[in-house]
């Protein structure tokens, strides 16, 4: 695995190389170098399976982390590749030409995080949320509690208690 990392390091500007488990390495990369690197990993180094393709919202840094975890089934190795893009201009290159099921991941990321993948088939089709008109729900600034209070209304006559004070009253009524 270390030979592979040295080989990649010579060709692509990777940084933050962390071995999370034996046979499992995460690296960071510039977003513009992603497609050449994973194409090379897939065709030359046997990383033929796309296991995880998801995003993490680092709202405090104003960035999205997109993680691609590739698996080499022969050598039993996992390589996680992190790329960071700005939250305001969340666009990433599509990898649907490399893996057939990547379009499904990209459709979900477009809907849940608002990350666009131009050219990916059916990327604008709703995946789970039909008729959604709010900000993408997996972004951390989407407040689930506020949304449910605005969208759904409690039945009239129903009492709402704060759990901490209610339990305190029930357990220690004299305090």
């Amino acid at each position, binding site marked *: 695995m270390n030979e592979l990392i040295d080989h990649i390091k010579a060709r692509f500007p990777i940084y933050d190389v*962390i071995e*999370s*488990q034996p*046979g*499992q390495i*995460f690296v960071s990369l510039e977003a513009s170098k992603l497609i050449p690197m994973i194409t090379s990993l897939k065709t030359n180094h046997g990383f*033929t*399976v*796309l*296991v*995880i393709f*998801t995003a*993490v*919202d680092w709202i405090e840094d104003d960035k999205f982390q997109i*993680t691609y*975890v590739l698996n080499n*089934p022969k050598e*039993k190795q*996992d390589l*996680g590749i992190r790329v960071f893009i700005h939250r305001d201009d969340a666009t990433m290159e599509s990898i649907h030409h490399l*893996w*057939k*099921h990547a*379009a*499904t991941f990209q459709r979900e990321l477009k809907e849940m995080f608002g990350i666009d993948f131009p050219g990916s088939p059916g990327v604008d089709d*709703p*995946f*789970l*949320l*039909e008729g959604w008109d709010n900000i993408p*729900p*997996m972004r*951390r600034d989407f407040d*689930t509690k506020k949304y449910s209070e605005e969208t759904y209304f409690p039945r009239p006559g129903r009492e709402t208690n704060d759990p901490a004070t209610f339990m305190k009253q029930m357990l220690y009524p004299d305090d």
Partner: protein
Amino acid sequence: MFPEADEQGMPVMDLDSQKYIKIWQGPNHPGVTGNMSLELTISGDEIMHAKTHVGYLHRGFEKLFERRRYIQCFPTCIRMCVPEPDINEYNLARGTELLAGIDVPPMADWIRMLVLEMARLQVLLRMVPGQAGTIGLGLGAQWGLYYRELILDRFEELTGGRIYHMYILPGGVRGLLPDGFKDRLEDNLKKVESFMKDIDRLIYSNAVFKKRTKGIGIIPNDWIEPYGITGPVARAAGYQTDIRLDYPYLFYNQLEFDYNLEHESDVFARFRVRRKDVDTTVDLLRQIMAKMPDKGDFKAETPNVLHWKVPKGETIVRCESSRGEYTFYMVADGSMYPRRINLRGPSYTHAVAVLEKLLINANISDVSPIMVSLATCPPEIER
């Protein structure tokens, strides 16, 4: 070419020409597993185009994880898969341990392995006899439920819960096996074995079942890696994959078993692989019971779980479910709450990309067998 293609090579299906009809299979349909629906464009009884629609069961679990402490994620994560919740417990517990650097006592790992194999057996006892229900032979499914309940009795005895157990926690498990547990499980396994002989006669020797399932829904070998196909579906195409053997976790490297392979890659081959999986699981349960120690420490020391700050890091954890590879991707940011927990189950590709492609030119009555042979489970898609 039928239907005609446009300039981009996409099929043109004009519903007004009366050659094509659009129908919906699901979300409420006896031949559909769970809450999903298929939008089918048919010509006669041949499917020209299929599209999967999910979202009927979306509960926002991955969003909920972000607002919960690690221990509070357990009651949520197990509900991601109703038939087989223990794999979620294991993956979440293992991921938390890896991030926090906790070593688990060997006794806990043996019990975890026993629980995971019992979970696999109870899923297979529902799936293997139930798969013939898709072509109208529902008897096996009704018999199978009784034998599944026997395993659920053991779960109730061990954990207190029948379906959702919350028995595997970070650091270990909640307790040791009760007295006489192994004998009672052995009794159940004997009953399951004799039941499987009935199932062989009822289903696998049935001429109608063979005729309806052989030669349909064939997945070519070169689809496996580009589509990310895993588990029994890949093994039915002769592709050697089993996370328990490829990436041994717990003590699977101390047990003796092999890949259950078939080569035809049709619906019948996938059903055959699952039938072989029952025998393997029963054998593994016996091996685990024989090799596991009787006593030992079952839980490592962990910090107070309500104030537990897990160090910054990321990891992926995978295990073999009854349907294929089940992977968790966990990111911790050093706070008491996980930054991101992402789940990828086998249905994510099986029920969307693979199913949509596989149904083209299939007969409308073959939709249910093909779908069930891929073991689609919608909650994995809409976490």
